[in-house]
């Protein structure tokens, strides 16, 4: 045969030779985007301090990842949006009151962000290898290290540039300490309570207050199929069911009255929506298979309500998700997909 004319250098690679447009960074930035409405509402209610706390978390998260990866001569991955997301989520889970110079508390978000990105994610090998949700570990670390600072809640106000705000309690805090009756007293009537919770006019972490904004973001993620219903719905469903069964007390005696709780209040307050739609659904730290995800969601819901109703903290979403993160690999091992033709294979062997 004649010599081969080598005009072209051909690229040889294993099939498939076409790939979808989807990338990790597109997914991460979409999730960041979906959180925007909730952040905007947080900024609306808690003012410039909220913006500053969230920004501080994001900058710290991205910067620590950059420095860490540069120092270890690894590929710098800050463009994939995942460190940004961790910072954003952590910031949304903090009280706006942390932006304060006297007493000086600026270091708190910084420490939390560092713990989230470096300890929880990078030291485990980076994105994909972490066992726990980084933002939640960051927050848990802060809650344990700075229990008082982490629970200074301020009243929502419409004055954006105001730096001093009255401290108050969160709806869940009120419920825990003084019962649902007191909550009604504070908010007037039930309808008003629900409306305020939906809009987000209440004390709480920056990004968790506006249920409506969170639902808008969640619908976007569901619609784009970045998340599926399995975890959030089983999580919320379980929590609502348990709130209804075990959440009601006799106002006078404080004794438990079964099937008299108010699931709506429980769903709309605290960090339940933020946790169920945006944090329990973190791909890396939840089970991969749908069946496992439902178990995971039920577990999260149960633990959340256990802590809220019987535990020492008014809110349990964070610990619930973190505990279930531990179980995610085990749950995954317990469920296998049923291979195409598997049942019949067994039959035909007989």
């Amino acid at each position, binding site marked *: *045969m004649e010599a*081969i*004319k080598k005009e*072209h250098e*051909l*690229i*040889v*690679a*294993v*099939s*498939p*030779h*076409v*790939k*979808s447009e*989807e*990338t*990790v960074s*597109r*997914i991460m930035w979409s999730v960041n985007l979906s959180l925007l409405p909730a952040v905007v509402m947080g900024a609306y209610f808690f003012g410039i301090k909220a913006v500053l706390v969230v920004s501080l978390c994001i900058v710290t998260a991205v910067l620590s990842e950059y420095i860490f990866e540069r120092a270890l001569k690894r590929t710098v991955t800050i463009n*994939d949006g995942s460190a940004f997301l961790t910072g954003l989520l952590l910031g949304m889970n903090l009280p706006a009151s942390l932006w304060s110079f006297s007493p000086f508390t600026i270091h708190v978000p910084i420490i939390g962000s560092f713990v989230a990105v470096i300890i929880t994610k990078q030291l485990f*090998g*980076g*994105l*994909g*290898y972490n066992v726990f949700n980084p933002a939640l570990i960051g927050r848990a670390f802060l809650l344990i290290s700075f229990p008082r600072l982490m629970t200074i809640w301020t009243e929502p106000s419409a004055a954006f540039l105001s730096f001093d705000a009255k401290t108050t309690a969160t709806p869940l805090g009120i419920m825990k300490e003084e019962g649902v009756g007191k909550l009604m007293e504070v908010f007037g009537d039930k309808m008003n309570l629900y409306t305020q919770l939906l809009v987000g006019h209440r004390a709480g972490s920056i990004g968790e207050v506006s249920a409506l904004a969170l639902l808008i973001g969640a619908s976007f993620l569901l619609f784009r199929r970045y998340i599926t219903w399995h975890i959030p719905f089983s999580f919320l469903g379980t929590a609502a069911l348990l709130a209804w069964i075990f959440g009601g007390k006799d106002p006078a005696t404080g004794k438990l009255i079964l099937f008299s709780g108010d699931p709506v209040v429980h769903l709309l307050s605290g960090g339940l929506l933020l946790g169920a739609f945006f944090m329990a659904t973190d*791909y*890396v730290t*939840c089970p*991969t*298979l*749908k069946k496992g995800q439902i178990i995971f969601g039920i577990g999260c819901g149960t633990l959340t309500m256990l802590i809220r109703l019987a535990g020492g903290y008014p809110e349990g979403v964070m610990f619930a998700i973190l505990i279930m993160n531990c179980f995610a690999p085990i749950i995954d091992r317990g469920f*296998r*997909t*049923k*291979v*195409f*033709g*598997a049942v*019949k*294979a067994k*039959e*035909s062997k007989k």
Partner: protein
Amino acid sequence: MSVLTFKGGIHPPDKKELAKDKSVRPANIPQRVVIPLSQHVGAPCKPLVSIGQEIKKGEVIGEPGGFVSAPVHSSVSGKVIAIGEFPNAMGRMITSVVVENNGKEEWTPLKDEPDYMSLSPEELKEKIKAAGIVGLGGAAFPTSVKLSPPKEKPIDTVVINGAECEPYLTADYRLMIERPREVIDGLKILMKTVGVTRGFVGIEDNKPDAVDKMKDAAKGETGIEVCSLKVKYPQGAEKMLIKAVTGREVPARGLPMDVKVVVQNVGTAVAVYEAARFGKPLIERVVTVTGEGIGNPSNLMVRIGTLVSGLIDECGGFKNGVGKVIAGGPMMGFALSTLDVPVTKGTSGILVIPEEGVVHAEDFQPCIRCGRCVDVCPMSLMPSMLSVLSEKGRYEEAKEYNLFDCFECGSCAFVCPSKRPIVQLVRLAKSLVKP
């Protein structure tokens, strides 16, 4: 009827518009053909010719080397000028016969059989076998072997695979549009050889004109049904096709005959018809030469043994800077390292991807456990686990995740946002452990 399909699968851009409307035209007959003696699954052929020998078009040059094998014929008339090792599309060296074309196009005597339907199933099968017919969809499994299931595996259905689910390729589509009658006649012969009265033609519903043509051709035939299937890759994979058309699930690691089905591709059906009717051996096939990197996408009737370089020249050469040249489709085809490999019986297409269209495999990221691959795997495997275990060298464990049920369709790697080379990792693991 509900839409016929299977669970999982993906929707890659189909790009069929490039070559869809190009009628099949005969390709230039090359001066020289390189005919590999192993173009099929199974034992390679033993050469029957020697260097210097004058041979005719259609003459047997390699006889089957075992039960699972198929004879190889010369695609031109002329002189054998070399017998030696030449690379094939997969990059392997294969014993091949090189024939210098004398341009006379003299056929070896063929047996015309106008009344072929009165032949016995055995006689028909013998004709199919003698013609060297193999699965033309790409798998290249000898057809006569598929038609000879063991006694304890009775067959009740023949399915013609007209899905052509690989993007870009239009060879089967053109055959269904241009020669629908022959596809149906081929199906009838296949049904007769395995003694069944039920036949299907499965076509993806993005080819409504092919569905119509085939339905017209099948009008008045009893027992033959043309089914429109949902467009979804890999609809044309045997197991998925059988599931969609008959609702039966081929057992894991089993064969279609385990659920009483024989599947043959559209091109194969036409070849079967030609073998039975005219005694014509398989010396040419339709090849789609297409892609954004080729000047003039075409569907060509190509002699087996024609070099890919010749086809590229004939179709207007490269444009937009060549990146990859693929034998087959973009999902399961092989990227060529040289253009001097011959078209074989299993070559359904030559796809040219320009430089900027190439997805580079090097920069992939860790698995983020998003589960997309699990959702799309038509075999319901866990590709994420397979890729991670293989990456870590834990091949034995990969077996527990049904490594060997993966048929490398590439759906998982297509959707993976981390761009993980899952198929590559699966192949690596498969090569290092025993099933």
